[in-house]
């Protein structure tokens, strides 16, 4: 059996070592990853995928630890992917989300993986989607994806998860301003963590006020749950709400969302394929460098240059 077949079989059998190796392949060898994902794809689609996003310091990792415990109490197996930023200057990363989850690491029903963004924009890594599929194929019932500390634009998570939790905490200053614009709109559930602090109610009211501004008729109104992640207070209620949202999705929207997700992934795959093949061809024919020079010399602007090159290409 080839090395990759061994890994595929291991993933499908839920072997932890092989799951770990598979995620490394997804992160570092795109060609091998393609085969791997193609082989396991028919075995995916069973897990419930939850995305957790919000500003740094709101308590994402601590909350996840408590959520995992609650799911374990309910007899579910859980996968966690915790994403932290890569330094754009050195390419290195400090992955510290596990600090809050380490007691879970010896539970055989839990698999936790830290992942660096490797400079992918949008709050998750390029390989996060594949890692979710790997954990799904490996039979995890619930998969939780923690994004990097998010502000306005870390919304890639909607392409990965079915239920999005946006977490906020009192005393984080004006982050609420930041989450208004972007991540606010993707929330299926809001969590106000550190609810034992003063101003927690104000944070709840802020979110409520924002939700009321949006007066479009919606089939699902995002609930606001107060939690204290350190003690676990409010977590069972949060899990109930996630369950409710899941049932709602199944009834109303799951198929539509699945189609949207499939569309986004297909478009991205086509883009990548087309872009790299065109650029490779242009480079091979030395036209790429020539145009680069012209752009630098201000003979042509980048957008017009791209159009010109593509027109020649598509004729």
């Amino acid at each position, binding site marked *: 059996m080839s090395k990759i077949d061994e890994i595929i079989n291991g993933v499908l059998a839920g072997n932890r070592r092989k799951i770990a190796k598979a995620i490394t392949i997804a992160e570092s060898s795109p060609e091998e990853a393609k085969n791997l994902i193609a082989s396991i794809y028919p075995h995916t689609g069973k897990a419930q995928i939850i995305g957790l996003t919000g500003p740094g310091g709101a308590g994402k990792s601590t909350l996840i630890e408590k959520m995992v415990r609650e799911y374990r109490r309910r007899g579910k197996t859980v996968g966690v992917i915790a994403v932290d930023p890569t330094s754009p200057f050195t390419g290195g990363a400090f992955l510290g989300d596990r600090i809050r989850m380490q007691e879970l*690491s010896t539970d055989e029903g839990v698999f936790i993986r830290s992942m660096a963004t490797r400079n992918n924009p949008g709050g998750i890594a390029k390989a996060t989607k594949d890692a979710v599929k790997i954990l799904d194929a490996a039979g995890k019932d619930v998969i939780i994806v923690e994004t990097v500390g998010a502000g306005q634009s870390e919304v890639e998570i909607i392409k990965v998860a079915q239920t999005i939790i946006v977490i906020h905490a009192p005393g984080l200053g004006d982050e609420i301003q930041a989450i208004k614009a972007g991540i606010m709109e993707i929330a299926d559930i809001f969590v106000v963590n550190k609810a034992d602090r003063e101003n927690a109610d104000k944070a709840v009211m802020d979110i409520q006020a924002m939700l009321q501004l949006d007066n479009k008729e919606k089939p699902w109104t995002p609930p606001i749950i107060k939690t204290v992640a350190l003690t676990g207070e409010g977590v069972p209620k949060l899990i109930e709400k996630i369950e409710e949202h899941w049932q709602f999705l199944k009834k109303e929207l799951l198929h539509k969302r699945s189609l949207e997700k499939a569309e986004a992934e297909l478009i991205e795959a086509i883009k990548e394929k087309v872009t790299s093949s065109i650029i490779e061809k242009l480079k091979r024919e030395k036209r790429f460098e020539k145009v680069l020079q012209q752009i630098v010399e201000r003979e042509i602007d980048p957008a017009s240059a791209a159009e010109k090159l593509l027109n020649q290409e598509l004729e």
Partner: protein
Amino acid sequence: MQSGKKIRVLIAKPGLDSHDRGAKIVARALRDAGMEVIYTGLRQTPEQIVETALQEDVDVIGLSILSGAHLALFPRIMELLRQKGLTDVLVFAGGIIPEEDIPELKKIGIKEVFGPGTPTEMIIKYVLENMQKRT
């Protein structure tokens, strides 16, 4: 750009130490050298360390210890690594470890021991060289 293998390192603190300044300095230096460093915090059991190394698929483990319990904890860690088949992981140690204990630690598979005051450049160089040998 995003593809290609990165060196993944677990910096772990076994036992009951109550501070982790040294571990964090090493973690930061390795990060600044372009590696992905997983840090798991204080008071880790050998089981937690080995299980983390497995799930994170690391290439390197750096063990930091100040409590004097290295002869009790390190053999257990090395044994668990063997049991789980993680024999290709490079393990080095640092902290307060008496000179006379080093041969014993090397015998059980700890590849290198760095004492207090080791320049971080030396550790970076050590990891990079050992990773290069592998490929």
